[in-house]
């Protein structure tokens, strides 16, 4: 069985994007994306966890039966997240201070269980890793986009506090897009999250429809 890595990449990043297409993990996604920096943090932390859990689930796929798969996956994911939390706290303490807040939120993240169920439990380890990377990056992309829109509309800045997260070398990312901006408070609050998400999803559909109709023209031309 040939694995189409190009398809995995395309699905993860765009066509089957966790937030915009599968609409999974909206709870942590909407809660943290008040700034683009937080979106990036949550996205990267999720990517790391997703790769590790996909490997674990894929390793156990030969012995797990249909009937008990969900409790087994939940156990494996919860263990992996807890171990990652402890190991990061112990040996990567500086990184933990930045990403640590996001890790407890990942346990409740259905992207992880969703990928375990629909991909890693049916595929070998290598494709599962690629799936984890691509789905994770797609999630990161969605969260950064969502965070950036909310941050610009809500407080007029972009990537605020990025230097705390990425180090001082990335201080240039911190932009004040609109100076002396009072901000639409609602964009920072949860309703703003839903609003922006709705518009972004509509935007994705629009792009998809456009590219579909573009592709449709040459086919019609041939058939007539």
């Amino acid at each position: 069985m040939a694995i189409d890595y190009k398809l995995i990449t395309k699905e993860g990043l765009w066509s089957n994007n966790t937030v915009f297409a599968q609409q999974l993990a909206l709870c942590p996604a909407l809660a943290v994306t008040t700034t683009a920096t937080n979106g990036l943090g949550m996205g990267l932390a999720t990517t790391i966890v997703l790769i590790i859990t996909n490997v674990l689930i894929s390793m156990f796929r030969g012995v797990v039966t249909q009937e008990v798969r969900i409790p087994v996956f939940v156990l494996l994911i919860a263990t992996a997240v807890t171990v990652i939390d402890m190991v990061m706290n112990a040996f990567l303490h500086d990184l933990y201070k930045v990403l640590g807040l996001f890790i407890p939120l990942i346990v409740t993240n259905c992207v992880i269980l969703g990928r375990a169920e629909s991909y890693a439990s049916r595929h070998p380890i290598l494709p599962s890793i690629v799936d984890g990377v691509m789905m994770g990056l797609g999630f990161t992309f969605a969260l950064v986009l969502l965070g950036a829109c909310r941050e610009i509309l809500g407080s007029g800045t972009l990537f605020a506090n990025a230097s705390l997260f990425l180090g001082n070398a990335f201080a240039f990312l911190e932009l004040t897009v609109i100076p002396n901006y009072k901000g639409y408070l609602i964009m920072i609050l949860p309703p703003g999250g839903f609003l922006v998400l709705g518009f972004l999803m509509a935007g994705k559909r629009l792009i998809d429809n456009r590219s579909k109709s573009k592709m449709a023209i040459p086919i019609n031309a041939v058939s007539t």
Partner: protein
Amino acid sequence: MALTPSYRSRLGYHSGLLGGIAFLASMALTISNIETHQAIEMAMAADKKVFLEQVVPSNLYDNELLQDTLTISLDGNEKEAITMYIARKEQQIVAVAYETSSEGYAGKINLIMGVNRQGEILGVRVLSHAETPGLGDKIEVAKADWILKFNGLSLNNPNETGWHVKKDGGQFDQFTGATITPRAVVKAVKQGLDFFAVHQADIVKAPLPPEPETKAQ
């Protein structure tokens, strides 16, 4: 897909599998806990040292803050004891730093606060918390200067009603989208001050650590 062997459909296989995975999971957790808890404690101690310097400015004292401690148990409960780090200048107690905590939105918020001899706050910092990033994490000094507003306050400044967030009629700002977090911090700081007030008499005559020689007051 290969045909599943018949033993897999038995109940015993399912429970054995689940039990086995649970066993592996607990093994993994136990091992990583043993392997990491020392390093975590060391990292926490290093963090605490940094924050200690922020809540009690180092020009105020000349002793070894971390070695000069006084332990006060809460309400006679030996397990719940608070360690006071005592700052002295020329053997005179000038300030103390200690931890206080309360329940935030997502678990415990641990704070460290420095209080001078008169009961005025020198500084408050968050040691650890698990509040929602972007909403509740503005209590960290790195993300906002909200926590600096406690500097210079004491139990009578502001008064009892002032020691609340604005929503509850007090003087402290809540955050947009997060009221529980600042409310918890204000409560913890207030409790810390109450604690200091109750034990002030004991604290100001805490014995020196190497030579247990009580200073005459």
